[in-house]
């Protein structure tokens, strides 16, 4: 803005922008070029296209028909499934994301020690994430079987009668949440990488000052892991709100609508009911929701996340 003012006043003064800033601008642009080009080529058109679709009625066979905000109003006022699937999805996000982060962190801490056979342990914890889903869907159905599945067998060991899990509308969501915690190996690996980066000098300094284990955790480890927790939270939110594949393969939204998540309903609208316009509206509502949550998280973390770099 100050450049404009300068030019208008007739002082074309290039030193307004310092050479360092210019250099940084060029460098930033250069390094960021792959993403910028990629965005323009592969992302902008599909995303804008879906936005346009959301204002139409479009069955993908015949040309789209403009309906203005019709899809949006129908979703908010007439579609009870919109609200119930949103509820199911939020339920999932609220439990699965924080639990996943906590468990992943605990596992990473556990594995960050000098124990024999550590590599093997790490690999085993990572296993559930590796199994191709075609096969693991069968697996999990067995694990959750109320009569003799792995889970209820373990519970019986401790004298607890396990619930119906995937067959019981009251327990189906907890079952899915549990299943996603099982797959936390990926986040665990990321946290492990992060734990490597906590400078041991910090531990030394704090330890010399007489800190005990819990204080070390609170004042050294967790602050340094801040950026990674932030990543886990935001990535978890983004992924959790779009939770789809497991539901599609294993429960199809049942039993009694209890696992009918937003993305499943969206998918059905798009590809089963041929209502692509309606589905696009759903997608953009979800986008705004995710963006709002993410912005909130970033804003509230700005003061609390410690980046060793700055």
């Amino acid at each position: 803005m100050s450049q404009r003012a300068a030019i208008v006043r007739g002082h074309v003064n290039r030193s307004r922008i310092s050479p360092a800033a210019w250099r940084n601008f060029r460098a930033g642009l250069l390094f960021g070029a792959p993403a910028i080009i990629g965005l323009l080529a592969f992302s902008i058109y599909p995303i804008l296209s879906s936005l346009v679709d959301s204002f139409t009625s479009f069955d993908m066979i015949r040309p789209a028909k403009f309906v203005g905000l019709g899809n949006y109003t129908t979703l908010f006022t007439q579609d009870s499934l919109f609200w119930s699937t949103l509820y199911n999805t939020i339920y999932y996000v609220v439990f699965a994301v924080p639990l996943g982060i906590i468990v992943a962190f605990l596992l990473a801490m556990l594995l960050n020690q000098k124990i024999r056979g550590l590599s093997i342990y790490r690999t085993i914890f990572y296993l559930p994430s590796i199994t191709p889903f075609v096969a693991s869907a069968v697996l999990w159905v067995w694990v959750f079987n109320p009569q003799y599945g792995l889970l209820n067998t373990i519970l019986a060991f401790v004298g607890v009668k396990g619930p119906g899990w995937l067959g019981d509308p009251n327990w189906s969501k907890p079952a899915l949440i549990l299943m996603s915690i099982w797959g936390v190996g990926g986040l665990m690996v990321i946290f492990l990488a992060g734990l490597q980066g906590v400078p041991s000098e910090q531990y030394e300094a704090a330890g010399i000052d007489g800190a005990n284990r819990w204080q070390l955790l609170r004042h050294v480890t967790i602050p340094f892991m801040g950026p990674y927790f932030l990543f886990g939270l935001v990535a978890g939110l983004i992924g959790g709100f779009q939770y789809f594949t497991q539901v599609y393969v294993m429960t199809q939204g049942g039993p009694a609508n209890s696992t009918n998540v937003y993305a499943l309903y969206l998918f059905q609208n798009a590809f089963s009911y041929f209502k692509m316009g309606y589905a696009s509206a759903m997608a953009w509502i979800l986008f705004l929701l995710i963006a709002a949550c993410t912005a909130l998280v970033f804003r509230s973390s700005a003061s609390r996340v410690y980046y060793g770099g700055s």
Partner: protein
Amino acid sequence: MARTAGTLLPRAGAEQRALAWRGYRPEWPKLFTHVALVFLCAVFAVPFLWLVSTAFKPDNEMFVWPPVWLPKPFTIGHFQQGWSLLPFPTFLKNTVIICVLVVIGTVASSSLVAYSVSRIRWVGSRVLFVVVLSTLMVPYQVTMVPLFVIFKDLHWINTFLPLIVPAFFGNAFFVFLLRQFFMTIPVDITDAAKIDGATEYQTFFSICVPLARPALATVGLFAFMGAWNDFLGPLIYLRDESNYTLSIGLAMLNGQYGSYWGAIFAMATLMTVPIIVLFFLTQRTFIQGITLTGVKG
């Protein structure tokens, strides 16, 4: 509770205590650790073990109740069957080509972009990051079709290009991850390099990249896994059977009117082997990549 090293030497001088803390990593009581590890291993490993054991079971033992753990006749027939039913060697070759290229492209481009939005102070860094991150927030179900149209117009359908080329333009998820990592590198280090006359590229390549080895290895591993197990992409963009990947091959065994479950489990087991190997190799960078931030006061 075990005593911390500090309290074991209450009277020792400052240097001795400093030495005792050298290379400290947080530790938990040994017994607790071992018990927890064994229990958790059982929990995490059992589903996978079931998968592997079922791959060796004869058909009639597969779905019995209660489930069988040790296959009675140890059957390797499923592996032979799976391998021969469909051209899996071709699928393997295709998948490897795609995965290797995707990993190279992803690691290279994502790290460059992450560097741009984290270590360079320029006007667009925040905007670029926000836009890149936002692309993750739009459900793929609605962007799938327009994207397909783009590739159709480019005549890339039935080639590997739609699966490989986007990887060279930065992956939003990994850009985010690497950005977080890069931001933990102290500014003093890069400032010092700049003062010594290093260009941005030199700073990136000689300082940040080596420091980021564990994170880069993680990204490589995840990118490989993503491409290896990717089903939807190959499903949409590949037409000829000669171009198919392993994940499609696996799904082909799952027919509408009946599935070769034995072959499915056998092939699924085989498909996890390269990832496990890769994971092991990746682990080494974690062990070697112990922090070298060496910022002296």
